[in-house]
């Protein structure tokens, strides 16, 4: 039971980041690796804000504003001009990777390479029956679930959500109907920034952070997206939860050091046997990506 719950909660963190990735990927078709840079930056801004403005509210404000601004800048200064030039997907990916490297190295230059934590002292624990949860885990489970539900509600119940899904479906037709494609793309990047901040801060509170955590977390998120289905909006969430559960099982059955290997083995199996993912539409792989 303990293992199931641990897996479920770490799965929520993966699902949050996977949702952030999907939020950008579906409307813009950009494989947004720069997300890892945002993920890295968030806890540092939180610490700075918390010490300057005082309290976790200040930290949250500073990190949210900072990360969303940076996400919007990524789109405005990098991906939008590339799209205008009709650059290839490969070019988007490489440029995004370049941005990630840039952000991480600047973070490391300013704040140093060592691991930090967001909380002081040991975490408060709560016992429920025969399972023990820490405060960080409860926070991650609660806030994470709420955020995921809120995002889904926004996508499926509101007007903006409808327009984002329309943009994801067919950008050309969306533009022909007179909607502003650029503004909606910016919105998608900003939302991804919010989700990445949440995922990053909640994880950092639990296990600490250093400049190099971002890429691994993002890779996990991408694996979750592929498992769940690239064309689906619920896919990444289910994929993330599934991945969290599988990884927790691996730790229990074998050892923590094979976690990564098993994760990428799962990815390889999915790519070979079910490339459209659990919730993806059945299409040829060449035609889904255009």
């Amino acid at each position, binding site marked *: 039971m303990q293992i199931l719950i641990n897996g479920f909660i770490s799965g929520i963190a993966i699902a949050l980041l996977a949702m952030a990735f999907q939020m950008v990927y579906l409307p813009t078709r950009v*494989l947004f690796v720069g997300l890892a840079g945002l993920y890295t930056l968030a806890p540092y801004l939180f610490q700075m804000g918390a010490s300057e403005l005082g309290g976790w509210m200040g930290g949250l404000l500073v990190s949210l504003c900072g990360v969303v601004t940076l996400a919007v800048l990524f789109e405005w200064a*990098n991906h939008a*001009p*590339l799209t205008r*030039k009709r*650059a*290839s*997907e*490969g*070019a*988007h*990916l*490489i*440029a995004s*990777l*370049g*941005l*990630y*490297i*840039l952000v*991480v*190295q*600047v973070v*490391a*230059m300013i704040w*140093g*390479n060592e691991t930090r934590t967001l909380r002081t002292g040991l975490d408060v624990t709560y016992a429920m029956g025969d399972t023990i949860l820490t405060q960080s885990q409860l926070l991650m489970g609660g806030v994470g679930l709420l955020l995921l539900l809120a995002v889904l509600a926004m996508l499926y119940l509101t007007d903006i959500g409808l327009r984002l899904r329309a943009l994801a479906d067919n950008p050309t037709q969306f533009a022909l109907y007179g909607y502003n494609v650029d503004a909606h793309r910016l919105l998608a990047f900003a939302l991804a920034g919010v989700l990445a901040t949440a995922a990053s801060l909640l994880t950092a509170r639990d296990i600490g952070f250093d400049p190099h955590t971002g*890429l691994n977390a993002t*890779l996990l998120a*991408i*694996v979750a997206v*592929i498992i769940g289905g690239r064309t689906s909006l619920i896919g990444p969430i289910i994929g993330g939860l599934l991945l969290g559960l599988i990884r927790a099982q691996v730790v229990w059955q074998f050892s923590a*050091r*094979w976690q*990564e*290997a098993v*994760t*990428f*083995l799962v*990815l*390889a199996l999915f*790519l*070979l046997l079910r*490339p459209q993912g659990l919730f993806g539409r059945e299409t040829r*792989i*060449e035609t889904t*990506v255009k």
Partner: protein
Amino acid sequence: MNYLIHLLIYLDIYVIVALSLNLVVGYCGMLTLAHAGYFALGGYVYALLAITLGWSFFPALLAAILIATIVSLAVSLPAWRLKGDFFVLGSLAVQALLFSLFYNWFDPQAPLGSWSNLTNGPFGIAGIPKPDVLGYNVADPISFLILATLLTVICAGIFWRLKASPWGRVLIAMREDELAARGLGKNTRLLKVQALAISCGLVAVAGALYASYIGYLDPSSATLNESILILSMVLVGGVGNFRGPIVGAIILITLPELLRFLHLPDAQAANLRLACYGLLLVLMMHFRPQGISGEYRLK
């Protein structure tokens, strides 16, 4: 003088790496992120054979090439079905798998090279012997430089021949339009397997050279960052022809050395170097997507 020789040896090693990656990225149009894994694989095979079995340089090198060639199937078989971004992700998976093998295949109790402790994990393999060529021990920098240059020339010659051969032209045809190439009866699956096998086999040569030159090898040479460095070498220089990767290797080897003259504190210098690579990649994608002297833009 020794510093210059050291730089030239590094350049030799990375020219082989860049040329081999060019065969995949430039001629097949497949962006692979697993190359550092194969580089390290070559180094590990060489190091283990040289240390535990006492093999001399060339047999160990041949074994490294052979094993890397066989393991290249891990990237080339998925390439049958995966295209574009999803091939990139597939290769990323292979990269992560190789890294975690190098990092985790060890047991502190067992001696190095036994079945349960093959790679010595995070501690790496130390004391890798200098190459032993036909009974002559290549220990001093000058003779090592000669050996490295010789191997680089041989590898470059192989790529030159491949590029000019009918096989190379079919490869370019496949890159431009795979469906048309298949329509003309070319076996594109086999072509991909062949190209990746050659590329991975030759990058193993560079890995073995690196391991024997430094004398120490740990999993950090198989990280994703290393793959990105190699890839940026090829992308900055340009892909799809012979001189592009060489230009890229020269730039990315000399750039950090130039930064060294700015007298930055050591802790900042490494970060600044990587930040420069990142910026360089972004700028290249915006202003010259085919690289400095390349011929082909990524699809």
